[in-house]
């Protein structure tokens, strides 16, 4: 009966922890995904362009500012690209030629960033093809893909013609083959994607690229890897973690505060288990005494109570995981975007359940340490007489 109650207590604690963890990691994953939808994990720039940690959220903006004076190219970029592609940590490598220009259509004239890409490569860094709202990702000669914001500003649609011109007088007329929405208004208004060759000639970068975007398998390694690449190549390497320092700090402090909360929940669960076990040691004094009289060793008595703590923790965590799962299902039912799609998808991962079960069993055993010691040290004579 008591064990049942404490298992429910442990269950509630574990449920809150699992629910919180799943919610938080779902939320953070979602935020990171949104942030990175228009951003590479690491951007490599020519060495002189020393990037200071910026409050700007976007590496492209940075590039635009700096390159206003004169575009610099990355040396030997093909070799570098091929070399980086062999790194196991790197998922995709995409060289770009990007620089400032104006988009002109009729009377309308907008300052933009021309981004010359190799579409298949670029698409593996930023899933542009998936984010098209019209047309397709086709960047042959004379073809351009623009953002929905710019399209609105210029009144352009798929199939329309558009003229791009640079400050030093080069220009090109291209046909819009697709419209994209990368979830970022600035990017949607500014980025104009053309083939790498077209950009190179527009920007007077023939044969060169101005930056290389990288996608990684593990986002969290971005900063370490950026340093390593910078060290090995002499290029400037900006990780998303550095360019979004404030955002990352916010995520980290969110995680820290949730860890603190989780710690205290675990602590109160531990005290709960310990107090129930202490009471049970007192209540079972006679049984402990008789077991000792039968020849049970102190170690055996200790083990019984440690086991009990572990079992309570383990079953509590199973119950808690089930509870957390139902909370999450409920949450997904309730938390929806205005259009009715779930705000973000979260699930209870098996790993998290295993961790909760392991953790709770461990907490159970740890909280049983003291009661188990008491049980082992109980004087059988006193226990049986009392």
């Amino acid at each position, binding site marked *: 009966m008591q064990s049942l109650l404490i298992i429910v207590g442990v269950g509630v604690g574990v449920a809150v922890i699992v629910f919180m963890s799943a919610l938080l990691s779902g939320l953070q994953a979602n935020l990171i995904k949104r942030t990175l939808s228009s951003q590479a994990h690491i951007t490599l720039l020519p060495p002189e362009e020393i990037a200071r940690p910026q409050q700007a959220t976007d590496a492209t903006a940075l590039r635009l500012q700096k390159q206003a004076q004169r575009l610099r190219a990355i040396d030997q970029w093909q070799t570098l690209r091929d070399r980086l592609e062999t790194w196991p940590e790197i998922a995709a490598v995409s060289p770009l030629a990007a620089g400032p220009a104006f988009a002109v259509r009729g009377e309308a004239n907008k300052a933009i960033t021309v981004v010359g890409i190799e579409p298949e490569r670029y698409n593996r860094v930023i899933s542009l093809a998936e984010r098209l709202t019209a047309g397709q990702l086709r960047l042959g000669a004379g073809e351009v893909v623009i953002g929905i914001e710019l399209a609105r500003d210029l009144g352009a649609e798929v199939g329309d013609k558009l003229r791009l011109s640079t400050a030093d007088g080069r220009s090109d007329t291209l046909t819009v083959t697709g419209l994209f929405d990368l979830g970022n208004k600035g990017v949607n208004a500014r980025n104009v994607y053309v083939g790498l060759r077209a950009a190179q000639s527009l920007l007077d970068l023939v044969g060169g690229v101005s930056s290389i975007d990288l996608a990684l398998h593990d986002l969290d390694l971005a900063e370490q890897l950026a340093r390593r690449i910078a060290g090995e190549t002499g290029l400037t390497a900006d990780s998303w973690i550095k360019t979004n320092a404030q955002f990352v700090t916010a995520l980290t402090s969110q995680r820290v505060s949730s860890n603190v909360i989780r710690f205290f929940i675990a602590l109160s669960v531990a005290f709960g288990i310990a107090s129930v076990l202490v009471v049970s040691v007192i209540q079972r004094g006679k049984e402990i005494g008789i*077991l000792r*009289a*039968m*020849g*049970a060793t*102190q170690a055996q008595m200790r083990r019984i109570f440690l086991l009990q703590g572990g079992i309570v923790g383990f079953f509590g965590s199973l119950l808690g995981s089930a509870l957390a799962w139902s909370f999450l299902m409920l949450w997904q039912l309730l938390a929806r975007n205005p259009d009715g799609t779930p705000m973000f998808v979260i699930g209870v991962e098996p790993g998290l359940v295993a961790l909760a079960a392991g953790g709770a069993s461990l907490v159970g055993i740890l909280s049983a340490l003291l009661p188990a010691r008491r049980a082992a040290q109980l004087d059988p*004579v006193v226990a049986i007489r009392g």
Partner: protein
Amino acid sequence: MAEPDDRVLHLAGIRKSYGSGEVESEILHGIDLTLRRGEFAALIGPSGSGKSTLLNLIGLLDRPTNGQLHIDGEDSGQLDDTGLTRLRGQRIGFVFQHHHLIPAFTAEENVAMPLLVARGRPDAEMFARAGRLLDQVGLADRKQHLANRLSGGQQQRVAIARALVTNPSLVLADEPTGNLDTHSADDVFALLRDFNRRQHTTFLIVTHDPRLAARCDRIVELVDGRIVADRPPPAARDTAG
């Protein structure tokens, strides 16, 4: 004189004090006692004379302040706690006034418990053995009953089966019939006597009931921590009981 290895229990000059310094009080003042294999002895004496204290010492649940205590020839003074626990588990069976069964377990599981404690994991043989002992104490049809569903007399019989399941050399019973009505007390006592006769197990039984004491082979009387008498029961009473 019997052979020395015939001595299941041998006490020499056993003293026991509680407390220390100024508040130290000696409860047992030098007890000498020997029990041989197959003996069936009663330990009697007024309340507070030290009977339970002595039984706990013999049962290795406590250590004497002074004196020597041998169980089956093994000197308990030479053993550490683990050694005492082992010796206790192998050689001694306890029956207390209260049965101390574990209520959440069945009669059979309770009886098998000492074997489980000794072997560490359950096996079929220990339950078979527990079952046989329950047959012998007349509870063949109650094996799967939970301990707390049995009557007082039945519970005490389960406790006796439990004390005997390890085949101990010495069974210590502290007022085993103290909680029972006369009829059940007679039954339980008869059961102990029966085991004693069939298996030659040595018994030392604390009792306040002179009628039962009279049915033992030997009556040891303790007064104020000293053995004042150690004799066979009066023959007249023997037939009356």
